[in-house]
């Protein structure tokens, strides 16, 4: 079987100034993961590596660079799934770690559960020796700027870029800021 890796960097808003960086980031992630597959590594290791690369890249809404919630905080979700066994692990609303995808894999491999959330996920991370990071280190100037711009209802002037010109105003209003 010829190994294959495919990655995406999200279907949300990407401004022109971030176009080159986001395109470069997915290529770097794909190539890093492909090297694992070339060396006989597993698909599971490859997808984890690809996602770690993008979590560490502030261009993307995951890990460092995550969008902020209404309180200006970072809450992250992640999942990993193994097609051989249908095993899966996930975390939700997790804080203060750099790579939620690694914690998801630990949930899959070290617990009887499929998903750990919030404080429970943090407790598990600590028990597994996953290093804590300062929440501020996950925030970027870009994520803070977008948070401020979107505090006021109807204050996002660039949303139409996200949906395209053919979408109605009512559709935009219904779906304002709902791209994860």
């Amino acid at each position, binding site marked *: 079987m010829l190994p294959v890796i495919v990655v995406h960097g999200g279907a949300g808003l990407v401004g022109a100034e971030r176009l080159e960086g986001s395109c470069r980031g997915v290529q770097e992630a794909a190539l890093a993961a492909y090297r694992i597959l070339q060396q006989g590594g597993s698909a599971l290791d490859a997808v984890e590596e690809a996602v770690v690369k993008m979590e560490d890249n502030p261009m993307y809404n995951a890990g460092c660079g995550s969008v902020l919630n209404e309180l200006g905080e970072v809450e992250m979700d992640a999942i990993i799934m193994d097609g051989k066994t249908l095993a899966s692990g996930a975390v939700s609303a997790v804080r203060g770690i750099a790579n*939620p995808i690694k914690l998801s894999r630990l949930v899959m491999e070290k617990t009887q559960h499929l998903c750990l959330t919030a404080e429970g996920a943090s407790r598990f991370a600590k028990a597994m020796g996953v290093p804590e990071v300062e929440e501020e280190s996950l925030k970027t100037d870009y994520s803070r700027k977008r948070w401020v711009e979107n505090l006021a209802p109807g204050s996002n002037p660039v949303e139409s870029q996200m949906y395209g010109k053919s979408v109605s105003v009512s559709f935009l209003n219904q779906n304002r800021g709902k791209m*994860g």
Partner: protein
Amino acid sequence: TVGAVAIDSQGNVASATSTGGMLNKMAGRVGDTPCVGCGAYADNLFGAASPTGHGEAIMKVTLCRLILFHMEQGMSPEKAADTALEYMKTRVQGIGGVIVVNSSGDWVARFTSEKMPWAAVKNDQLHYGFYKGE
């Protein structure tokens, strides 16, 4: 949101997805990402998928499991992805994208948003794109 799907030399597939969620979401909001069949799905019999987009819409149609269901019924990854994304768009007005690989190593990156950065490597060849049709 970021995601990856892969098939290795043993024919095993896997999927992974990670996100900060939705801009200015309510504290405590959990989207599609950590939900099996929504934020990811992988089954060696059919393939693997990872999505991005409107989380609540992706959950309503269990997007990744829907794509694998279509592939189980004989659709190609491209047809399965397009059919599921169109269903999500018309049925629950959800916009998004997916990457898919099947158990034969055929892959696709499809989206109903204007843009989605993606990249793929197969047979030592790098493919990438950003806009529809690339």
